[in-house]
């Protein structure tokens, strides 16, 4: 089988949905739920998620390219990025399953799991349902039997600049004209742009833009773009509404800077899910997310968050080996 082969059944006569196989894991959906099956310790096991929650989680995994570290769809299943390879697990970070040997992890070529997830998203996302949208912005067409698709929504490209958006040859700024109207929750955000007074010859070197206006035009939730690049230091702002559809398990320290409104983070131990803290962030707050936690955010009003990442490739191994402490600074 080639890395890009997707193993899928014909469409179900009953629901219209296809079922998928990824290694020994099985994935199927019905009108309400997605079911994941696996075998461990001689036992057939399964786990169910609401189909909308599953689609929102898979959408982030696909859009982020499996992101940094762990993307827990919930307390049972998820992925771990090994950068070139990706683990899919069930129960591995759930103590009740782990202690009884009922967990299962398999490692896949990134391209194979990506192709399978994209095929699932394509088949299981009905017309009118946008997994990137806040619940108030999309329909309930995720439930029920298969009805069409929403490829325009699920095939969005993550907007990552090379240096800074708006520079010649770099990512575009967001405007009405290129399909990014101001979001309903940011209708009061100023659209004024900086005044740039460049001397002749420096028109392409002097550059500024309104980051807040740019974010007010984001058409997705919980999906960071990249707005400035300094070597491996990446500013990744994002707009957040309702609940982060996954629990992100860190393989490095990352930092959050709350740019507007309020966001609450529930922090759990990365391996066991045991609660460790709540971090309630208001505009201007800065907080580190240590390398040994998983976190999930809750935002009652669409808010602007700057996620600051260090993309140095060696970091996961340095934290895993204990050469780096899981927190960023000692004081």
């Amino acid at each position, binding site marked *: 089988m080639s890395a890009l082969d997707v193993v899928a059944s014909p469409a179900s006569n009953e629901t219209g949905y296809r079922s998928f196989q990824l290694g020994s894991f099985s994935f199927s959906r019905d009108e309400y739920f997605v079911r994941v099956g696996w075998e461990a310790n001689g036992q057939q096991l399964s786990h169910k998620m609401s189909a909308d929650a599953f689609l929102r989680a898979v959408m982030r995994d696909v859009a982020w390219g499996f992101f940094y570290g762990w993307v827990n769809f919930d307390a049972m299943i998820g992925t771990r990025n090994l950068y070139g390879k990706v683990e899919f697990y069930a129960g591995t970070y759930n103590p009740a399953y782990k202690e009884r040997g009922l967990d299962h992890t398999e490692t896949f070529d990134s391209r194979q799991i990506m192709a399978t997830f994209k095929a699932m998203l394509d088949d299981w996302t009905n017309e009118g349902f946008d997994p990137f949208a806040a619940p*108030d*912005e999309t329909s309930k067409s995720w439930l029920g039997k298969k009805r069409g698709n929403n490829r325009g929504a699920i095939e969005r490209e993550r907007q990552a600049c090379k*240096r*800074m958006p708006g520079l010649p040859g770099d990512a575009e700024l967001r405007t009405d004209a290129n399909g990014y109207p101001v979001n*309903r*929750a940011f*209708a*009061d*955000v*100023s659209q004024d*742009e*900086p005044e*740039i*007074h460049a*001397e002749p*010859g*420096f028109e392409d070197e*002097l*550059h*500024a*833009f*309104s*980051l*807040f206006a740019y974010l007010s035009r984001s058409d997705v939730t919980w999906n960071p773009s990249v707005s*400035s690049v*300094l*070597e*491996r*230091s990446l*500013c990744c702002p994002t707009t957040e509404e309702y609940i982060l559809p996954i629990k992100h398990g860190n393989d490095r*320290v*990352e*930092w959050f*800077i709350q*740019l507007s*409104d*309020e966001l609450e983070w529930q922090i759990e131990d990365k391996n066991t899910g*045991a*609660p*460790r*803290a*709540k*971090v*309630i962030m*208001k*505009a*201007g*707050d*800065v907080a*580190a997310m*240590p390398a040994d936690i998983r976190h999930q955010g809750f935002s009652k*009003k*669409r808010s602007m968050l700057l996620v*600051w*990442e*260090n993309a140095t490739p060696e970091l996961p191994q340095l934290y895993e080996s204990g050469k780096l402490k*899981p927190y*960023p*600074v000692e*004081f």
Partner: protein
Amino acid sequence: MTAEFQTAGFQTVFGSLQDYAKGELEIINDSPKNYAFSNVFDVASRSAAYEKVVVAINLGYVLETLRAEGTSPWFAASHDEFAIVMDGEVEVELVKLEAPAAPASKRGTVQLSGAPVGRRMGHVKCKRGHQVLLPQGAAYRFKAARPGVILLQTIEGELSKQKWREICYT
């Protein structure tokens, strides 16, 4: 609840030196220090003008908070830097340096001893939420008629000040 109903009720809350509220840490089984929790407006309210206070650090890379007030010294770096105006109005003046202000191996912001030698690139007038590129090879200075706040993406350097005990929940 309809989208129309919500649109009428939305009010986006940004912070400022005059009006900010710091969030909270609810510790269950952890140390508050692990989160190095601070607030840029709180930090700037207690800083000297253009003091470069580190509020986030990740193995040499930093985010610094600067209180913008009056005219800053001239700064430069051997790499790009990016400034986001979090509060106030800040003008950024830029000069293309004839010679580097520091060797390429020197990381972080350096302060020039006097006026930069080079061609004027121009200036940028920024308000809250605006982001400006401070390009490698350029000297720059900030001007703010009234106190404001800048968040600077840069690399830890000789001007960076770390005072975590003073700015973070412990």
